[in-house]
């Protein structure tokens, strides 16, 4: 068994950004273990995608190609990668931790008698893999002890892709054609659609005030909205607020909502679970107001106020208004 296999993901005909981060994680393992890094890209037509990947320092790029892989299905992708892994025999298989990967990678690992170490944020000597526990309150260090490939998926933003200087010679590209029968694909996926008309573009907002579970009641939202207005900021929310219907879905920040990178992200009553952090950790300045000093949001905050938001927010709104006069 040898080598590190990085599985890329495409979105609308392009390599998704987190795929390059998975490659960075693969290269990290390469530095530690000295194993060669290869890449796989899956689809019905992967020629241009493979060429894009082959410009990186890789042993080879595998085009896992079949007409039945044109659209993602868990059955198709699991079958294809199972065959690829049995043929290539890699020691490590690295995925980006996307919704697609979450849908099939653990079935793939189980089929080969293994367990995916998912949503990894760091790789240490050993190798050991760190992932977050209890919504980001604690970290857990995991080790693969099985005989067989070690499956890992990496969290968005956890591994920075290195600046690539195009001094490397292009990697060898090979086509791998898995045997897949239409009858083996049991799910019928439809085309993606947007939930509602997206009228709020949080991704371009410079200032965001975001509200979470700590707000307790829908009736308390206007208090935070007033702070947003005073600052000239967009109002956003974590998932539970949108699930409860207190703010529209289009104002949701996080893995299932929008990804934002404002100059200021002011988190009010948001504990900062992983799924939320993924959507906002690119913010230049994070301010957190929370009653719990151990809330994970303080791990990524530049400024924090530990206190009752029902006292802090009105005081802050007043102070902002005074400063604006």
């Amino acid at each position, binding site marked *: 068994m040898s080598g590190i296999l990085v599985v890329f993901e495409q979105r609308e005909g392009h390599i998704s950004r987190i795929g390059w981060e998975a490659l960075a994680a693969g290269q990290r393992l390469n530095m530690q273990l000295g194993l060669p890094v290869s890449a796989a890209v899956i689809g019905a037509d992967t020629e241009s995608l493979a060429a894009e990947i082959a410009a990186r320092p890789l042993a080879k790029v595998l085009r896992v190609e079949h007409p039945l892989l044109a659209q993602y299905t868990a059955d198709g992708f699991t079958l294809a990668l199972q065959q690829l892994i049995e043929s290539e025999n890699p020691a490590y298989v690295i995925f980006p931790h996307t919704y697609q990967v979450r849908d099939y990678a653990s079935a793939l690992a189980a089929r080969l008698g293994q*367990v995916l170490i998912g949503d990894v944020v760091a790789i240490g000597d050993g190798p050991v893999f760190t992932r977050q526990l209890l919504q980001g*309150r604690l970290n857990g260090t995991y080790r693969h002890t099985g005989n067989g490939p070690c499956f890992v998926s990496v969290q968005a933003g956890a591994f920075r892709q290195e600046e690539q200087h195009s001094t490397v010679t292009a990697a060898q590209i090979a086509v791998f054609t898995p045997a897949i029968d239409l009858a083996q694909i049991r799910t019928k996926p439809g085309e993606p659609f947007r939930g509602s008309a997206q009228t709020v573009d949080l991704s371009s907002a410079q200032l965001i005030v975001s509200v979470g579970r700590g707000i307790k009641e829908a009736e308390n939202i206007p208090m935070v909205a007033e702070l947003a207005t005073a600052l000239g900021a967009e109002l956003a929310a974590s998932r539970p607020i*949108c699930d409860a219907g207190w703010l529209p879905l289009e104002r949701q920040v996080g893995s299932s909502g929008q990804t934002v990178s404002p100059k200021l992200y002011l988190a009010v009553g948001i504990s900062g679970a992983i799924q939320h952090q993924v959507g906002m950790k690119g913010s230049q300045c994070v301010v957190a107001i929370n009653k719990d000093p151990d809330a994970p949001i303080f791990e990524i905050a530049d400024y924090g106020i530990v206190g009752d938001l029902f006292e802090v927010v009105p005081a802050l709104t007043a102070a902002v208004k005074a400063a604006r006069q």
Partner: protein
Amino acid sequence: MKIVVAIKQVPERDAQVHIDAAGKWIEETDLQYALNESDAYALEEALQLKEQHGGEVIVVSAGPERVGTTLREALAKGADRAIQIDCDDLGARDALGVAKLLATAIQPEDPDLILTGLQSEDLGLGQTGVIVAELLGLPHATLILHVEKTETGLKLKRELEEGWFQTVELPTPAVLTIQSGGNKLRYATLMGIKRAKTKEVRCVTAAELGVDSVPVVVLERVTLPQKQKSTQILPGSPREAAAALVEKLKFEVHVL
């Protein structure tokens, strides 16, 4: 429709957690437990499907004795009966090991549908449902917000990233992992709580199921996360802290 819902008991969301002496997990004494949130949505989906189409809802959970409380809660909300997989070493089992327990306990029930939450709030693996499907040879779909029964199977609303959705169709029997927020959760009524006391809770042990616990992935150490940024905590009364923050926003962050 015969529906099995796999549910997990997890530490309450606001519970203060402390790493245990061995540094392998958290101190469990005095900890309050609750039903995992997305599992609550899975149960709700099952109860609504039963109300529309008839059938039976069976809840199953693995863990130590205290798991019984969470199963009773599910029965009080309207599940018909429960299977409790008694094992004190849940934490020593990896995702495949736990899924084997559940799959082995579920298989003889031969359900039309198996539902579970998207992921647990404690380990957050998000793998159990997918592996159960793999072990039972059933099709699956994840991140499901809405389930509709059709002539041939199910039509599902699946959540994608960044505000996108997708419709997925699949035949039954199948396994679905349910995302939070698709339905409004019900509360147990007094009548429901009373009825729950007479409903069947069948106990099986991991040994009786014949499932071993040799993991291929081991959680070696639990640590406090290192701060990624040095957070400056602004002290004082709410007014003082607010005034200090305005100063920072003005002179450091330059947004005022």
